[in-house]
């Protein structure tokens, strides 16, 4: 046992030496996650606000002015231009100076005064579907608000008391992320993607490297057991993955004000299990990949894409096709995204997240067993 610990220690020391000698690798495991975090968090923001808006008022009446004030006062729309003809809308959309156009036809105030439903055109640039969808919803909401305002004004003018009339007022609240800030929702998921990339890719390559260097044969003629090699290889990467977890959590808290509401230890345990599951996946790749390049590409395909697309990180899992939902169960990222968001946003702990943790344990064990068998089979073939 003591000998085994010494051997594992030798592997760990050696792995850190490799890391220290290869600045690119160091860059890949420490700097890249930070860059990815900043890039993703700023670039794939699903937040929609200050949407550039062009308004065209053909009516030019006090009523239309009042209507447009709704848009100018909203933090959601930012009126960037006042047009005079519909051609200005084309122009603004073409040059990306505006994404939404509000067009008030002439006769708007007259129609309102005659108690008929007035028409307002809201034109939306659909080339950015997410922004388009949200713009539409906001604009409808603004119109409703304005409609209610008009109703109230009309009632006041008629001397009616609407307070006894019971107008329906929907109160919508978004739980866990009341401001619906996308960084709150992205960063816990992003952490999962980044850990997956670092761990899967590095383990996938680290064993293939031993084979490529021919050092694997030297390891085989030593009394070291395969499990010692695996543990020696996993330890440094577990440590580095935890460093990345801490880094991302810290940056998320400081730069993006992401809340950490739940049990930190649940996050740590979940992350540890996820790291093991991912490392198992990496070992599986190195057990079957013939070369470093193949291992790299396989790792990218297996670690990056599913954890990005099939984890609930980018797309809600109940929104994707059913067969893709099934495939998503085969990758550990989906469990970890649930854990991560649960702890960060919902304030969850072990009581709520144990099913995901159990799934990760099972997943990690299955991966380690399969890859150990395959690796052993290959090495002396």
């Amino acid at each position, binding site marked *: 046992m003591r000998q085994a610990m010494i051997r594992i220690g030798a592997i760990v020391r*050696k792995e850190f030496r490799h890391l220290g000698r290869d600045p690119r690798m160091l860059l890949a495991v420490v700097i890249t996650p930070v860059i990815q975090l900043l890039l993703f968090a700023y670039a794939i923001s699903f937040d929609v606000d200050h949407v550039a808006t062009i308004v065209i008022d053909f009516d030019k009446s006090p009523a239309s002015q009042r209507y447009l004030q709704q848009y100018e006062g909203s933090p959601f729309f930012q009126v960037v231009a006042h047009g005079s003809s519909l051609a200005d809308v084309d122009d603004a959309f073409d040059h990306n100076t505006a994404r939404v156009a509000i067009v008030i036809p002439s006769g708007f105030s007259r129609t309102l005064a005659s108690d008929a439903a007035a028409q307002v055109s809201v034109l939306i640039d659909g080339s950015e579907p997410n922004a388009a969808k949200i713009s539409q919803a906001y604009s409808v909401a603004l119109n409703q608000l304005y409609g209610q305002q008009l109703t109230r004004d009309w009632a006041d003018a008629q001397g009616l008391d609407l307070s006894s009339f019971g107008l329906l007022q929907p109160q919508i609240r978004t739980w866990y992320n009341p401001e619906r800030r996308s960084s709150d929702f992205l960063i816990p998921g992003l952490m999962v993607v980044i850990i997956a990339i670092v761990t899967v890719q590095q383990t996938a390559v680290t064993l293939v490297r031993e084979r490529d260097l021919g050092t694997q*044969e030297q390891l085989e003629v030593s*009394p070291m057991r395969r499990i010692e090699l695996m543990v020696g290889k996993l330890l440094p990467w577990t440590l580095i993955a935890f460093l990345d977890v801490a880094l991302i959590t810290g940056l998320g808290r400081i730069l993006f004000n992401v809340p950490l509401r739940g049990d930190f230890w649940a996050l740590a345990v979940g992350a540890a299990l996820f790291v093991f599951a991912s490392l198992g996946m990496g070992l599986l790749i190195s057990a079957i990949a013939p070369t470093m390049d193949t291992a790299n590409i396989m790792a990218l395909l297996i670690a990056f894409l599913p954890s990005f697309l099939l984890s609930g990180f980018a797309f809600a899992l109940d929104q994707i096709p059913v067969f893709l939902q099934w495939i998503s169960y085969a990758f550990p990222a989906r469990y970890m995204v649930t854990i991560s968001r649960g702890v960060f946003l919902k304030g969850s702990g072990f009581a709520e997240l144990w099913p995901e943790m159990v799934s990760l344990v099972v997943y990690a064990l299955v991966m380690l067993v399969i890859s150990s068998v395959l690796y052993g089979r290959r090495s002396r073939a």
Partner: protein
Amino acid sequence: MTTPATAAPAIRASGLRRSFGDTLAVADLDLEVGEGAVFGLLGPDGAGKSTLIRMLATVLRPDGGEASVFGHSVTTQAALVTPRIGYMSQRFSMYPDLSVAENMDFFATIRGVSKADRRIRSASLLEGMGLAEFTKRQAQHLSGGMKQKLMLATTLMHEPDLLLLDEPTTGVDPVSRREFWRILAGLHRAGKTVLVATPYMDEAERCTQIAFLDSGRIKQFGTPDEIKARVPGRLVEVSATYPRAALAAVQGVPGVESAHLLGDVVRVLWSGAAQPEQALGAALAAAGVDGAGTREVAPDMETVFAYLAGTVAEPHEAAPSGTGSFAS
């Protein structure tokens, strides 16, 4: 020269077989190497040398047959075999980004060498091999000869009794090759058993025993002198202004077993009863070859194997004598 110990021999293999796909790399091979031997495994590329060594080193499973090292099976008792062997693979198999000292220390550590022993042994090995001033240099920045010495030094850190060296001198400059063999001679004197594969025939002379391997079978086995004695007759070098003319002139002369060009001389294997100088001189004169001269030389391994491969290997390809004659 080989003194078979009372205990099990260093290496014993019987019916050992291994194929890769359709290629039979090692074919029903029998072999016995006594303790203390410097055993040369000769043969061209693809003869099966590496396959044999890797099976003996326990890193490759045989398809059939049995092999044992110091009495322990390489398949079922690998854990008893590996502590006593040092295996040096054909390719450089150290970590290129680790220094000389770090490589040696790492492999010795996983081999279970204590810290104190690691320090003492690495100091003396590095000194003995002329690597002492390069301890901090990364392995990737060593020359070819130094890389081989580093591998050998690393292999010796756990003081193995049997060294399995797979073409340690291939691609190494002649000076380094001589030095490498000087180190092996020292190990031999220290009582180690060495099995060394090499494609260089001249290195065979430095071995106590040799086996010539071809197509996975041992074609020749014995001490260098025994093998040389299998070549009937004497070796004569014929020089001439136009060596090709000389070659044409001596071919077909009664008593000439074989003749071939080697550089700018013709090498003739003579088995006639008469003195070769006279008989060949007469033939050369008759053909009118200019500036001809003959000189008897000691047969070298290159010529011996060229002759034995041409006469023995082909007719006896499938003969059982090809496998039976080498157990000493």
